[in-house]
């Protein structure tokens, strides 16, 4: 798998971004900068705006206010970014067919399709399940297939939305191992999770969201050792942020 040069796509800057849906403000005045390096993990309670932030970064949601820039430029089409949704839709074809489709959509040449499909299936540990209809894979296998499909875009930045939600520990470990492997290949990972354990295991940086606003952001080490805000302290203590 080829390795992208991050400098051409990063940093991703959110400048006073606001998103409104059905008259409800989902993100409010969010300003953030995502740099290269270890994964950035978005944490926060349900409804805090994590998924919306990822979708906005992917260009899948219109902004009501503010702007998002990639290496200083506004980009509308998701050319060098990919996303794995919390509930990925499986195309009605085999696991390998799903990856071939994503590769083809990303412009891969026909001669390379089989080789890269096999590569990606192996990367996510599904090499023995390539012929199986994707919709008949288990939940964890579907998540890994979705990850492989996202990687077919050969992204510089990969967004993961709750990639291990509702998975058992073994399936969670399999996904986290792939995430580490991806991150080691210089692909910037930005993921949302409500699992603090997962955030501790994977995060280089942490962003805490609550009610559509950024409460705190910074290095994971500092955040978990000495959170600066009252909300972060309460969240880490397991209290409910309402």
């Amino acid at each position: 798998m080829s390795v992208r040069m991050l400098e051409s796509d990063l940093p991703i800057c959110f400048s006073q971004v606001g998103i409104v849906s059905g008259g409800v403000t989902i993100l409010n005045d969010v300003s953030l900068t995502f740099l290269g390096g270890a994964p950035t993990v978005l944490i926060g309670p349900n409804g805090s705006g994590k998924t919306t932030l990822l979708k906005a970064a992917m260009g899948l949601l219109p902004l009501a206010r503010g702007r998002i820039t990639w290496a200083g430029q506004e980009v509308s089409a998701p050319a060098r970014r990919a996303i794995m949704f919390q509930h990925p839709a499986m195309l009605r074809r085999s696991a390998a067919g799903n990856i071939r489709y994503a590769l083809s959509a990303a412009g891969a040449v026909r001669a390379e399709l089989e080789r890269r499909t096999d590569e990606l299936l192996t990367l996510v540990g599904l090499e023995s399940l390539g012929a199986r209809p994707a919709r008949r894979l288990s939940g964890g296998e579907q998540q890994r297939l979705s990850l492989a499909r996202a990687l077919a875009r050969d992204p510089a930045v990969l967004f993961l939305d709750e990639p291990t939600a509702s998975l058992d520990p073994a399936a969670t470990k399999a996904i986290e191992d792939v995430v580490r492997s991806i991150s080691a290949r210089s692909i910037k990972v930005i993921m949302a999770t409500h699992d603090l354990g997962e955030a501790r295991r994977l995060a280089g940086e942490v962003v805490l969201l609550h009610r559509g606003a950024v409460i705190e952001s910074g290095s994971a080490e500092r955040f978990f050792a000495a959170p600066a805000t009252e909300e972060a302290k309460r969240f880490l203590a397991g209290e409910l942020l309402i």
Partner: protein
Amino acid sequence: MQENVSALQLVLTGDPALFAIVRLSLTVSLSATFIAALIGVPLGSLIALTRFRGREPVIVVLNALMGLPPVVAGLAVYLMLSRSGPLGRWGLLFTPLAMVVAQTVLVTPIIAALTRQTIEDLWLEYRDELAAMNVGPLRRVRTLIWDARFSLLTALLAGFGRAAAEVGAIIIVGGNIQGFTRTMTTSIALETSKGNLPLAIGLGIVLVSIVILVSALAWGARRAAERFAG
């Protein structure tokens, strides 16, 4: 009982008159279904994937037209093709082609409405993924139609079933002319009224067999979908 035996003999011995009627019926209904598919699948997909003013009333009307009474469809086509109608100079009335047109009018809303529902449901499921993959509009449509192919095949079979079983439209525009526009359903109606029950029952057996075959094909398509596409 005697009629049933005679009817079976007609079917099993391959009675030429009976099979000429069957052949014409299948030709008309398959042609109508094919043309209706060419119109209905793109039309249904277009309505599923676009948003325009008046879309919801269009969907309501389309769904209502699935239950269009065949005699009304036949009457409408009759008025179009009759000598004083706008297409009267083509001289199509009381020909097999007129029957194809009438059945196409009947079947197109069925295929279009079922396609619209199928494609729209699949689009809701795929929308974010395809957008994230930056898939263009034409490829989206191709993907949705291909991935929905087994469900769409069921829609086509439903359309064909409707065409093969109807009598009201084709008897109006075809005229039930022996050896020319006489189909299974119109023959059954005529032969029953004449008291020629063996032929009517024989045709009934063939027609019911075709309907069962269509149902079996729909079932097979569903199973194939589960096996090959999940």
